[in-house]
């Protein structure tokens, strides 16, 4: 009986409280947003006219209802493609995710070995640590133009693909890769340095070769740290792609957001923000699932 009660309460809490939070935010949004009011007034000529007036704390902010009405088309037909910058919201998300995946993959492929070198060799760490510390805080907005310059005349054609990579695409991938690399690099380095001396002693006593020590002892011992780095990197990669798309105007969630801002269609900005948030949350959950599997192992 008691167990039953606790079970019910647990379920209720974990479902109702988040809903309550969402409701409070929607209410605040509604209060903040402006609304249209029809006012009947006598004009200068003495005639009765009905005028629609926008009133509210923030007159231009669309209310939740207006946001839904304006976004309905994009949400209910998520895969529609009406034009390059007029697609369903999932179609845009897919385009953004494709770029993120490529940049993120490069970040991991480069970042993990660099992290290992930093963790294993004091000399390597001393040589490159200052450069890493300087490059790490650089904003994606600063990297992107450099990427554009770098890839201006580079043509990369993947066999089977319809068109070669464009400069802006390559620049976006470059920016994602270089910005999201650092958490992987640093976490891997910390993980390698945190390997207990005991494990290394085991390797020494057994006379494991260098490659065997690396793959049988060092890599498994570092995996939990590496995955924490991978997770943080993915979060950054998703942040960066939005900025990169906004600057390059590529179709994607960020590109759509920027275009709709220029088109004064503010409801779609909110749609994009919510989409970016939800996708980011989903990616983080996914990574933490994988991470916890490796931590328990």
């Amino acid at each position, binding site marked *: 009986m008691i167990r039953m009660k606790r079970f019910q309460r647990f379920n209720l809490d974990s479902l109702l409280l988040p809903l309550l939070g969402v409701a409070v935010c929607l209410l605040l949004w509604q209060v903040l947003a402006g609304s249209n009011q029809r006012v009947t007034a006598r004009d200068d000529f003495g005639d009765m006219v009905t005028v629609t007036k926008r009133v509210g704390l923030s007159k231009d902010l669309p209310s939740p209802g207006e946001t839904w009405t304006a976004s309905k088309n994009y949400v209910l037909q998520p895969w529609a493609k009406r034009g390059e910058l007029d697609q369903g919201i999932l179609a845009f998300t897919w385009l953004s995710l494709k770029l993120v995946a490529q940049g993120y993959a490069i970040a991991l492929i480069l970042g993990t070995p660099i992290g290992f070198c930093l963790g294993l060799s004091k000399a390597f760490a001393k040589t490159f640590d200052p450069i890493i510390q300087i490059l790490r805080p650089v904003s994606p907005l600063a990297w992107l133009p450099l990427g554009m310059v770098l890839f201006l005349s580079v043509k990369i054609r993947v066999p089977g693909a319809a068109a070669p990579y464009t400069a802006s695409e390559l620049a976006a991938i470059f920016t994602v890769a270089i910005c999201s690399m650092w958490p992987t690099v640093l976490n891997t380095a910390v993980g390698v340095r945190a390997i207990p001396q*005991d*494990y290394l*002693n*085991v390797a*020494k*006593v*057994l*006379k*494991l070769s260098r490659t*065997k020590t690396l793959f*049988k*002892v060092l890599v*498994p*011992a570092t*995996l939990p740290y590496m995955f924490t780095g991978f997770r943080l990197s993915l979060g950054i990669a998703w942040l960066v792609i939005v900025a990169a798309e906004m600057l390059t105007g590529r179709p994607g969630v960020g590109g759509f957001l920027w275009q709709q801002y220029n088109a004064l269609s503010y409801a779609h900005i909110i749609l994009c923000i919510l989409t970016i948030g939800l996708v980011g949350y989903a990616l983080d959950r996914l990574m933490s699932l994988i991470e916890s599997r490796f931590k328990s*192992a």
Partner: protein
Amino acid sequence: MALLSLENVHVGFGSGAKRHEVLRDIQLHLAEGEFVAIVGYSGAGKSTLLNLLAGLLQPDSGSILLRGKPAPGPGPDRGVVFQNYSLLPWLSVEENIALAVDQVFPEWKPSERAAHVRRYIEMVHLSPSALKRPGELSGGMRQRVALARALACEPAILLMDEPLGALDALTRATLQDEIVRIWLENRRTALLITNDVDEALLMADRIVPLSAGPGATLGPSVPVPLPRPRDRRSLHHHPEHKHARRTVLDYLLGPGGRPKLSVTRKLVLPDLVPEDLDGPRPALFAPPKRRATAKSETIEVH
């Protein structure tokens, strides 16, 4: 000829004024087939001594000889059971041992190696837990795995660094008996490092006390001529046991073996400057002259 010997070995850490000597003038000879126990205080340098024997640490001076020749670096010919088990937590019991066996006997067929691993798991009575990870095992079981891993390499000498230190008294007793049983089966040379005199008396042929640090050194070795198998209940009544126990304890608690207690106290001289009336007058806000400097002396307490 001794299987493994240390000659005039000195080890210290740090350099210059900060250097402190951990082990000084260590002489140790292990004969083939002997079970030697080194008994000493915690922190005296027992683990340092074991690292030396295992080849994980090089002495500052003196030499380590394996069968009369300078010992090479660490290798599976000297099996080590570490104090904290040192099992790889992402591998199962079987995989932990197989990692060692695959490394030491690469020329064997895979089926032979697997059988070898199983035999040693059986020897430490862990067959039901062969597929478990170290995290799922108790401390005693983990230490059995570590023991099986060291033995499976068929080392010429088995080095054990306080292997039972982290276990409760009952598990400890069972494992003591088991280690002796396994040792009796093939009588490989074994070295046990412990801080428990009774454990050493129960298991070893010979006890070498290690004096307290800093600058610990080995005392005269004490033979334990007790018949095997030894029974822990009746052992105490044996006159040889009493004699050996007293000799070891006398050394460890005597002037040569026990920790040197020292007190460091500050000596503060009164901060008085004699006034010099003939000299130039000091400036009004000149910093006060300080002649007294804090000094300290260290006194050994007996």
